[in-house]
């Protein structure tokens, strides 16, 4: 699978993958971690979060962690998910590298 077909990622999805890359988490932990990271205020609610998680599961980017129980579903990132995350970060870095000199020059 070529990860680039799925790019660009929405900021919310990027943040979720980034948070999961550091270790498995359940829904509440994910919401808290995402909120803590995005001072610009990516607000997550359970309904949208689990909707995104369902999609990511279906795409094979994440999977349920082994010790997951019904009430506190815990997810971990898969190899495919890591690939997507790396691809998106790379894309953003290239983008930044191209944009930064322009801003610096114009300012």
């Amino acid at each position, binding site marked *: 699978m070529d990860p680039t077909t799925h790019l660009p990622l929405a900021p919310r999805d990027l943040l979720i993958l980034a948070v999961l890359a550091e270790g498995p988490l359940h*829904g509440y932990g994910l*919401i808290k971690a995402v909120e803590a990271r995005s001072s610009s205020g990516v607000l997550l609610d*359970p*309904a949208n*979060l689990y909707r995104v998680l369902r*999609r990511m599961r279906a795409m094979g980017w994440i999977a349920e962690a082994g010790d997951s129980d019904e*009430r506190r579903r815990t997810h971990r990132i898969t190899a495919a998910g890591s690939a997507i995350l790396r691809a998106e970060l790379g894309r953003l870095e290239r983008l930044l590298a191209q944009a930064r000199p322009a801003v610096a020059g114009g300012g």
Partner: protein
Amino acid sequence: MNTRTALAVRLYRALAGLLPPDARDDRDAMVWTLEALRAGAPGSFERLALTARCVAALVAVLVVEWLDFLGVRRTSGGIHGHGRGGMGARNLRYALRTLRRAPAFSLTSILLVAVGVGAVTTIFTLVDHVLLRPLPYPDAGRLVSLDHGSFQGPLFRELSMVPGVQEWAGAWTDRINLVGEGDPLRLEQARVSENFFDLFGGRAQRGRLLRPGDFASANVVVLDAGAWQRIFGGDPSVIGRTIHLDDEPVTVVGVMDAGFTPPEPIVGRRVDVWRPLDWSVEELNRHDTQVLEIAGRLASGTSVASVQAGVDALLARMADAYENYRTRDGTPRSVPVVALADMTVRGVRTGLGLLMGAVSLLLLIACANVANLFLARGLGRTREMAVRRALGAGGGTLAVQLMVESLVVGVGGGLLGSALAWNGIRAFVALNPTALPRQASVRIDPQVLVFAIGVSVLTSLVFGLLPALRSVRQELADELRGAGRSATSGRGVSLLRNGLVAGEVALSLVLVAGAGLLLRSFLAVRAQDPGFAIEDVWTVPLNLPQPDSPEEYRETMDAVLRQALAVPGVRTAAYGLTVPMDRVGGSRCCWGSRPKLPGREEDRALDAMLHPVSVDYLETVGIEVVAGRSWTVAEVNVDPMSLVVNETLAREMAGTPEAALGMETEVGRLQAVVVGVAADNRHYGLDQNIGNQLYLPVERLPFALPLATLVVRVEPGANASMPRALRAAVWAAVPSLPVTTVRSMREAVDASTAGRRFESVIFGAFAAVALLLAAGGLYGTLLYLASQRRRELGIRLALGASRGRIEVQLLRAGFVLALVGIAIGLGASWLSNRLLESRIWGVERSDPLALGGAAVVLLVTAILASWLPARRAGRVDPVETLRIE
């Protein structure tokens, strides 16, 4: 707070349950996450905001998930579809974005829909559970009951001859005292025939129900589940034990299933003990004693009419054989065969129907308001629409988009409305003083949720369709041309908007006038002179263990009287078979009589209610003696018996109260003479007819009674101690006598009008909401009118028109709209108040005060609602307005 938080989470859980199957697995995790988030919120406001946000997001996700599930939208390509989705999802996303950009508009619309849907759903839930659902019995559709009172035992036995009926069951209900289990208790007892539990599908929770063998000895009892818990704390060892009911030892053989609902028309709402009908009891074998309530199940395929014919034929035969089955004019007694379901809800059908009508009006008003909002918003977006059409969007596409917007508002409002209904239904059941039949089973369930959503979708179609159609029909060129200047609405639209506002005013007037009529009835009832004392009078209904003789009854009651008189603060004490407000409403306890007058034909005999009372009764209850006097202790046993008649009866007998004194008559089989005339009083309720009433010495009753009500008149300062002191007094006289209630006459009178008060309060609440909605509609319309004509007003002001003039002009516009609405509303309410006829008392349905008052209320509301926009129009700064243009 705790219950509300729980409620929010429950609502969230219920909503999450509506997710499509593939997403529902996450429900528990979602709810758990929400709970964790809520627990982490720093304050209650943050918690509320968080919850609201999460619920709103869930609603949006719900819609999108279902679209995915139904394949409307294909999203396998990405996590979120960057416009790659199908039509439905794209429209939805667009609608959500548009609505989010106009939060005031969206919130107002959603709230309006929620109010309407919430009110309708609340009342519909009641209607559904109380009126529409089949009774909880096997083959409930085929259950019938005999109407018009109770029946004789011998008639019940003959009923098996009526063809077309599978089985009949009868029940004899009364009250009985349980002694020897702590404080004496008064229990509701039902003695039922053998096949009663077959007919109604009763099951035993423990032990067994009644067996055929039980009916021979009749010394067993089955406890109701509630009574078992209440009295015996759910102790299973009570089965097999012997308990004492009115001194009679009976063995407990089982406990009824907790889910069993007693058939109300047959045994009443509550039954504590079920016992076999003892056919050896004399009353059950007499032709002149009517004790049984009867129900039956039709054979399948039999019509009620054919059974009615069979019952009529049987009654005709009985009437030929026995006098007791004939009416006064000699014809057989008429006994309608009625579906049990109809009989159960007969008393509440019109009331609930009325409420349903009221909330439907409310929903209509809310709809009109939202439609108006959408129209106004549509006008504000003409430029947007024109540009989009110029860029190639078809009229149909735009209309669909607008419809999706209104659908989103409708569904959002519907969900919020369901939450309102959830609370509303509890509040209604808790506050309603007149218990509804089957109300224990009333709750919000998925079916009702479906109803609420259905109503909202329908509602949104109604209010969304007009604006959407308009956007399709609009000429593109006109819009683009108009877009350069401030858009003015076409004639058709303003007519429509005005019509909607006038309609709102009219509908509100119907509700306000209805509330006014109910309030006037309530006040009229309260203003009635009861004819007896309300303050400082206390009553204690007693249920004596079946006394063996009239003497025993009298001795017991005399002992109670002596103890009551010894209570400090009690001035006088008396007792009667019943006292005022004891039996409120239609049921007239306990006997009527036709006192015979010399010189009058039998057929002109007078119907009167008999009140057997003790010596000081009239004085104690505070009924004035307007002529003659009451009897004394010495006269109790003197013949002819002393009688006191009420004023109505005295006038009927002799023309004036004075002329009735000394008249001789015959009551029952006793010769009697009228010694006094009592002032008329409303014994059976403030809104009941006075009728002919007759007081006679209780000592002269030739048979023993199981009932009496003690009544005392106390010093004004002694009221506080009465409940406890009177209870103690009764127990000092008869230790085993249960005292269920000690009630002041004030309480009794208040309770008797509580139903009317509730009705007028709830109607008043609906009317107030309707007024608010109509005022909002008017306000919005005029505000919009003013902002549309800003340019014109600015120019006129610049040219020297006075601000006052402009204000008056706008006020007049609102005034005219209101007047048109009021005129229509007056007509509508004159027609629709016919439906209120059975609920109002002491006022005409065309009561000018109620109708006129409603008109004035609406007019004042309309002026207030127009005044603010008018002032705002008058404040327009001409320079600034023209500069904008």
